[in-house]
């Protein structure tokens, strides 16, 4: 199943500063919750892993990240991620298109992400995937903004954190980033 997410946000920093962050895989990837780089293949290809964990489903994707387009002049970036579940339980593919424009003395960041998930996560979590993805990229945006300011970012993934965000978003809450109080742990019957 495919989910498309479109996001825009305004950064206070200059376009060159934002570009230097967004075109740097080390800095970009570590803003994505649960993701980390494991190997630099060449200047455009990187190996990494993403852990997705919510409710009964835990998936670790090992994948290849490729910058298909990095145009410093037009400030256009296209990144493709192809991940395979480390246990052969499925795959996740992602295409991210991002472009920067100067706006109000800062930078407008616009990105679109298409995520296609196949396998166990899609089978069991279809109903939650849109919500999960939305909250993942809410967090990604917040992390990225913090990183631009030079702050430390914690992008580790925990089951409680993930499930909590999703449960909240299903009930209309949790969309707000500042609401970071962890919710009570999921009831045992949701994990069987």
């Amino acid at each position, binding site marked *: *199943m*495919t989910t498309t997410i479109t996001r825009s946000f305004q950064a206070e920093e200059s376009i060159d500063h934002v570009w230097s962050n967004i075109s740097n895989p080390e800095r970009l990837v570590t803003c994505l919750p649960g993701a980390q780089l494991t190997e630099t293949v060449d200047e455009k290809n990187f190996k990494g892993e993403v852990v997705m964990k919510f409710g009964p489903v835990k998936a670790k994707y090992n994948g290849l990240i490729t910058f298909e387009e990095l145009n410093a002049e037009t400030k256009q970036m296209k990144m493709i991620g192809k991940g395979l*579940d480390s*246990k*052969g*339980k*499925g*795959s996740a593919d992602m295409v991210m298109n991002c472009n920067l424009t100067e706006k109000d003395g800062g930078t407008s960041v616009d990105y679109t992400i298409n995520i*296609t*998930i*196949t*396998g*166990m996560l*899609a*089978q*069991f979590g*279809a*109903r939650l995937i849109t919500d999960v993805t939305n909250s993942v990229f809410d967090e990604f945006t917040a992390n990225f903004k913090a990183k631009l300011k030079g702050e430390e970012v914690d992008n580790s993934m925990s089951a409680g954190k993930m499930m909590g965000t999703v449960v909240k978003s299903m009930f209309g809450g949790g969309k707000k980033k500042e609401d970071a109080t962890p919710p009570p742990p999921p009831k045992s019957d949701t994990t069987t």
Partner: protein
Amino acid sequence: MIKCKTSKEISGMGHSMKRKEDARFLKGKGNYVDDIKLPGMLHMDIVRSPYAYAKIVKINAEEALKIPGVIAVVTGKDLEQYNLHWMPTLMSDTQMVLPTDTVMYQAQEVAAVIATDRYAARDGKEAVMVEYEPMKPLMDPKKSMDEDAPLLRPDKEGQTNNHIWHWEAGDREATEKVFNEADVVVKEHMHIPRIHVASIETCGCVADYDKVENHLTMYMTTQAPHAIRTVIALVAGHVGLTEEKVRVISPDIGGGFGGKVPVYPGYVIAIAVSFLVGKPIKWVEDRSENLQADSFARDYHIDAEMAADKNGKILATRFKVLADHGYTDASANPSKFPTGLFSIGTGSYDYGTAFMEADAVYTNKPPGGVAYRCSFRVTEAVHAIERMTDRLALEIGKDPAQLRFENFIKKDQFPWKSPTGWEYDSGDYHAGLELAMKAIDYEGLRKEQVEKRANGEMMGIGISTFTEIVGAGPSKDFDILGIKMFDSAEIRVHPTGKAIARFGTKSQGQGHETTYAQIIAEELGIPAEHIQIEEGDTDTAPYGLGTYASRSTPTAGAAAAMAARKLRDKAKKIAAHLLEVSEDDLEWEPGKFSVKGAPEKSKTIQEIVFASYTNHPQGMEAGFEATHYYDPPNLTFPSGAYICVVDIDKETCEIKVRRFVAIDDCGNIINPMIVQGQVHGGLTQGIAPAMYEELIYDEAGNILNGTFMDYLVPTAVESPKWETGHTVTPSPHHPIGAKGVGESPTVGAPPAIANAIVDALSVHGVTHMEIPITPFKVWKELQKRGVFDKE
């Protein structure tokens, strides 16, 4: 009121005897496959594919084998050595037991993990690493025949595209002529979606191969144990498992509904592993495996058309079907009937011209096409004809009940030859609909509807007057893998007048232990309480094709009556001997023979049976036993008239079934209470596809509702109060005049509900809604039509 010929003590036909089997079910003493524990038994779990279509690059079991308790990981390559990696389906297609190179649907079996306990097996399954090379799956059957569609079955010799078979019935040219000349033609496209039987008990088995005796005992969830034994012998005969070395035992079954007719790979893998290691192997599916991988039902895309004159006299119908069978045709149909009994789709109406055709195609979905409580595709056919009948009524502005009365086959037209070749045995459609209309106050409802509509409220009334076709079937036409579809009964009465009777069928909740006993009680006068019924063990029961498609009463029930009559004939000879009179001087009343004109001179059946062991006439065979293999002369044609009333909330579009009246005619009734229970269950399984159930796949081949969190099985909360009743039109050719009832409500209910919803929405110009009709679908339809803009 049903007239009973026997006393309550005997409890023959017509008595609402309490179910004999219920004591053990209610007290937790049922014996299901998962209750079977054998010494040294190992457990199996199955690694399944996350992809709908992929090459298998490598299966790495290294980590799995390190887990304490994990003994082996079996792959397709292992089975290939014994030529057990493929098996035939009941439709003579082929199906993988385990793949050697390609997976064809999501959740397909890829490897089996054998361990000392179930937990270790599950841990092992998680640890098996499979490397795949995913390919773009073919999910839309409408694209199966496209030029650029991948050839899904290159393994099949001569297969050059994804077409499986073409089928047709009726007269194409004559139908076209009628359609060209008709005043009115209505047409709709309808999809009868893929659904799952979702029985409470999933599938499973314990395969117990004894190396010393070279003998396999197979405990399994099967509705057709004898057929399965034959299939095992056909598949595994070459490794020494010939039919006399195979014993299939089908213990208590927690719901079958057709889903336990096919042979699933899990069964075969368990047998193969038990054969290799010489230990019992248990395999029991979990809920999601059951829902995602086992045989589905339905999945017919139908273009339905009806031609009529301007007064609404139906002249002809034409149905064109595209059948999505997944990657292999694993239906459980009789050989000559790839679409099952779909050609019943001309319905309860008197017209002479029809044409139906179907094409089946492969897709990357699980295989199947089982008769989910639908007697071989009758649900699909009835949905099409009953929707079109309402569609015609809407088109010409005639009340749908009136239109039906004017088109019904009349009571005196039976036996009636249908335009697709069936001979309907009996029916009284007018009486059924009249009774249903009276029970629900049809006229009052129509008046209320006019008032409600004036207030902008959406209320709908839907009718379904269906004809079922069950009891497959006469041997001249009906076989599965060449085996004729008769069924059998063997009655053995003990010296003290108590009996055991064995059958080739297998109850999965239908109440055979009670109803079969009642049939024998009716014929022999031995109290039903004293008759033990046994099914499901191929070593003891006579051969039969099993229980599905509402065939047990029409076939095995008839066999019980016929075997009992053989015994009554013998009883008469013995009674004549004991009473020293001629057989012609005897008369029978349930339980005894007495001398005509001298009723005090009589012998009870118990005395007669005792004599058959202690004092039988010289020259007569001793004992009191009989067997009958019943080959039905025709199918039976139950019918029903269902009326449903719905209210649709004009803001939320929530659909509420306010009332549902179901009048069934299943011929003579054996046990009214059991019939009512069957009807309640069937109606609930009818509301399911109409409003809730559908297996949904995305383009990548993911099943999006493979758990009960997302796949909506109706519960008591969703079920309206069912109001049931019956008319009785006995089958003229069945020994006890019974017709079969288990599936009628599932067949009849969906179009009644759909017709009611469409009736409610028709004020906004809606002519058809695809099932399952959810509030969201209704909301979208009304939104599309700008209904909410106006308000």
